[in-house]
């Protein structure tokens, strides 16, 4: 217990020195607040239409302007944060759970099982990620949950490979042997002894994957395969802003800015965590 405490403390100390990571955490906190308190924070409802205010540029009443149905862009962006974070978290949970299990089994048992599982992962990697996401989401049909599944499936191989290599580097160590000698079951060894020791790379990969998942979600929605209107998904907002690019360029700017800020924040946190959790850099 004492050891995990000091590990956490060292990580936090190192994180505090990384200004970009701090900035990332602050931005993420703001986004999470937006998502949680969307109903309170947003000045208007995301679907509220005002036909007197169609495609009006930013003003005092509508800080970021209104879209082609007279809906408030700022409010839609705030509600969009909810969708994006939701999709990011659930998609990554799916890939972490499935990919992690596959990687753990492959690394722990090795041999033929390892070979078969990792070849399957290789096959999936032969299809470019976004292409696979497009095919799966078109097969599942539109909708929030289907989108999460499609995006989640695409990063399974990355987690499987990461988990496998972590397990491989740990399973030969003495404390695993000791656990086995004491009669611990395979499941217990994997969950209690191996998993805590490969948490660090998994946490880093998860953070970066949330960023990737949000990006893929936005891309799919932009292509018309993701969340359907009137739900304010950031990529979908850009897609519906496209016809008005000549006269209402601001409609194409703010949702993209929201996506970019989110991804930058998550990437900063991921990079910061990687540096902070890397034992090679200790002191």
């Amino acid at each position: 217990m004492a050891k995990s405490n000091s590990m956490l403390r060292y990580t936090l100390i190192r994180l505090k020195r990384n200004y970009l990571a701090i900035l990332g955490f602050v931005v993420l906190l703001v986004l999470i607040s937006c998502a949680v308190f969307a109903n309170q924070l947003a000045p208007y409802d995301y679907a509220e239409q005002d036909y007197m205010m169609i495609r009006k540029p930013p003003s005092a009443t509508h800080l970021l302007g209104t879209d082609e149905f007279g809906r408030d862009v700022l409010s839609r962006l705030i509600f969009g944060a909810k969708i994006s974070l939701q999709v990011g978290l659930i998609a990554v949970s799916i890939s972490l759970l499935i990919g992690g299990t596959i990687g753990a089994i492959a690394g722990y048992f090795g041999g033929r099982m390892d070979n078969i599982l990792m070849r399957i992962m290789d096959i999936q990697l032969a299809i470019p990620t976004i292409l696979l996401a497009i095919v799966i989401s078109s097969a599942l049909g539109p909708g929030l949950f289907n989108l999460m599944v499609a995006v989640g499936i695409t990063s399974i191989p990355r987690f499987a490979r990461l988990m496998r290599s972590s397990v491989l580097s740990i399973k030969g160590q003495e404390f695993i042997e000791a656990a086995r000698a004491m009669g611990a079951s395979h499941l217990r060894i994997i969950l209690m002894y191996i998993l805590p020791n490969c948490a660090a790379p998994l946490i880093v990969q998860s953070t970066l994957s949330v960023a990737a998942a949000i990006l893929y979600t936005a891309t799919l929605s932009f292509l018309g395969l993701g969340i359907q209107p009137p739900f304010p998904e950031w990529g979908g907002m850009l897609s519906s802003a496209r016809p008005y690019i000549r006269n209402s360029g601001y409609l194409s700017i703010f949702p993209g800015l929201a996506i970019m800020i989110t991804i930058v924040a998550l990437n900063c946190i991921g990079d910061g965590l990687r540096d902070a959790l890397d034992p090679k850099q200790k002191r």
Partner: protein
Amino acid sequence: MAKYIFRRVLLLLLVVLSVMIIIFTILYFTPGDPAKSALGQEANPESIAAFHAKYGLDKSYPEQLGRYLYKAIFKLDLGYSYMMKSQVSMELAARIPVTMKLAFWAVLVSTLIGIPLGVLCSIRQYSFLDSLATLITLLGVSMPTFWTGLLLIIAFSVHLGWLPSMGFGSVSEMILPIVTLSGSSIAVIARMTRSSMLEVIRSDYIRTARAKGQKESIVIMRHALPNAMIPILTVISMQFGTLLGGSIVTEAIFSISGVGRLMLEAINLRDYPVIQGGVLFISVAFCLINLLVDILYAFIDPRIHVK
């Protein structure tokens, strides 16, 4: 070497075969009837049945899969597009050059900018230039491709009116799509070049080269960069896959009739043979590039002993 290449090619064929089976299976179990998309929702049962019989859609799953694989492998026949009423292979053949041209230029541009930028950052680590480039590359990897494209159109087509926002024929039409597509790859390649170079620059043989009075430019170009190339090449070959995937988005934004746009149209119309053909082409191209790069390693770094 020949044995290694032979083994890799065999593996590649296996992977491609699996990709074909997987994509076919995904699409087979996709809800929705292609006949209804092709003939309209109100089509009468007889014409739907005729449509099914014509394209073999009334057969069982193993039968359809077997027929698809047999025709694709032994007759190079990827099927018949429901919508365009033509051979999928013909449609692909018309579109592939456009997509390849786009991907090729994007890879070239991102390599030619990304590597020098990364090298420059690594030899001036922690300088103003390095910090600036780090910031720009961070933004670069975080910008969605489609947004980059939209911003470029707003700036260069709408406001400045310098470049067209559609098509991919003339040089001026090619600039915006290529910049859009290569943006994030430049960032990824520059980042990898920087970290790989930083690792190499600290090694003993670089110190030796400097100690014997070698000119700095030669130390960097002849001693450091070639040794830092392996991870950079890996990233470039991985980027090729990203670029081929990203070309779907880029083609959609700039109305370029390449494979990506063909596939998007096919997805909307449930034109399964076209989707299968498109995925197959992109995966094969991606696998081939990875294979070529793996073989290239052995030439760049003679220490890599081919097992």
